[in-house]
């Protein structure tokens, strides 16, 4: 049984021109096992975000079958009461509420589900500790650095304890050094909670460093070009990036993506 299954899914956007549809994702299939870390790489504009939105139930698929735990995804609010989110999303921008302090931002998901203040703070504190921001509970987002804000964003997604975590280029706004540090942090956090992760990135080395499995996508419309297994032992250290096997894998993916570049 798979955690997440996509069978020939397509996503189309209606265009302003009458009766014209733009196919963003074309017949994509993949299977993701429970507790697997899957990274999607592909050229810009190929449709990665669209796939992630469809998984989150924010965007309908136009054909095919997309299931989480063998259940069809019908929308983000699935009508079950109480609603238990199976997935949460982390986006490129932290998108925190500037009028709430860190603790209230992080416990937002639980607040929506009607948890008592005490309970949600308890969980929020736990995940703030995990991302290393225990000292900043009472701070406001504008008082934090970009990297810290992104960690709050991550903690907010983790606090609802989703069985599926979706990350859309979460670290792309960070500088190279912070980014490497965050990759290591994410791995550490994930090894601790061990849920299923779908992660989108532009950086090949980030993909290899984090992934159990890499989906290499083609340019628009998006199709799966190759699926690459990565089985370096965990926990991986950043030194891995200098090893020859790592670089071989990097070249392999680079060659796959090279021909997809819009500039090619």
């Amino acid at each position, binding site marked *: 049984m798979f955690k997440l299954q996509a069978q020939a899914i397509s996503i189309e956007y209606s265009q302003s021109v009458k009766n014209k549809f733009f196919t963003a994702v074309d017949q994509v299939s993949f299977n993701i096992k429970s507790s697997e870390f899957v990274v999607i790489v592909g050229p810009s504009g190929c449709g990665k975000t669209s796939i992630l*939105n469809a998984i*989150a*139930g*924010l965007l309908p698929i136009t054909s095919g079958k997309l299931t989480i735990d063998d259940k069809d995804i019908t929308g*983000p*609010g*699935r009508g079950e009461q109480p*609603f*238990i*989110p199976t*997935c*949460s*999303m982390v*986006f490129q*921008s932290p*998108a*925190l*509420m*500037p*009028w709430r302090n860190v603790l209230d931002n992080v416990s*937002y*998901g639980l*607040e*929506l*589900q009607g948890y008592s203040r005490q309970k949600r703070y308890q969980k929020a504190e736990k995940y703030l500790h995990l991302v290393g921001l225990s000292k900043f509970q009472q701070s*406001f987002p*504008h008082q934090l650095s970009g990297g810290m804000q992104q960690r709050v964003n991550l903690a*907010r997604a983790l606090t*609802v304890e989703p069985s599926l975590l979706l990350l859309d280029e979460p670290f792309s706004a960070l500088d190279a050094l912070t980014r490497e540090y965050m990759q290591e942090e994410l791995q550490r956090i994930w090894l601790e909670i061990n849920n299923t992760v779908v992660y989108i990135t532009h950086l090949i080395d980030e993909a290899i460093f984090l992934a159990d499995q890499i989906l290499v996508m083609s340019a628009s419309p998006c199709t799966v070009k190759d699926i690459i297994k990565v089985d370096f032992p965990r926990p991986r250290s950043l030194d891995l990036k200098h090893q020859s096997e790592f670089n071989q894998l990097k070249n392999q993916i680079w060659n796959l993506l090279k021909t997809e570049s819009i500039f090619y």
Partner: protein
Amino acid sequence: MKKNLFSLAQINGFVKDKQNIFIPLFSLTIFLISWEFICNLELINPLFISSPSRIFKAAIWLFKNGFLHDIKVSAIEYSLGLFFAIILGIPAGIYLGWYKTLELIFDPFITALYATPRVALLPLLILWLGIGINSKIAVVFLGCVFPILVNVMTGIKTVDSTLLKCARCFGANDFQIFTTIAIPGSIPFIIAGMRLAVGRGLVGVVVGELVASSAGIGHMMSIAGATFQTDKLFVGIIVLALSGYILTELLKFIEKKFERWRM
């Protein structure tokens, strides 16, 4: 300790030097004394520029002879107009910002009325509502409602779409998104709208009363102006200036309360 010239607190205007109170007070005193002096020496005809002592006397006379009633009438016109503008403008702005179709329906009217100088509607309003307080309430309302409405609408429309997605993922319903994201997110816009509204409302009251009225500060001023009573005119101007000043300070105070709601 070395004074940091560019400390963040100073840039944000949080720190006020105590000295700063005395400098404007001093300049004001100098101004008043020279004004009085120029008039006493009869360098300029007091009919045109009056003088502080004459204005003071006029003020006392006015307050003994029913000026308080005029102020009350103007205040009622102003506050009722503003009140209706707020209780209508904020919900309407929220609805129009949230539902695209509603916006499309009302957009031509809002744009046209927002662009028209409200005082141009005064003759019509007086025709409909008479020269009493109703026509003034209406003109204040029209002056205030659009800045509030348009700002709230913008606030609702510019809600962070990523934040919306995040809330939807957590299973938020429309009501929750409304109360936890849309409303708090538009507070700065509501305040910005209010700030515009406060000034426009004041213009509405005065112009309305100057055009046609039976009482009010503007009414007193229009009579005083027609009979060359410069001193009384100045009393009216000062009362209006003070009201504007107090209202602006009040809004600044409210704005500070919501400081951290801004980005």
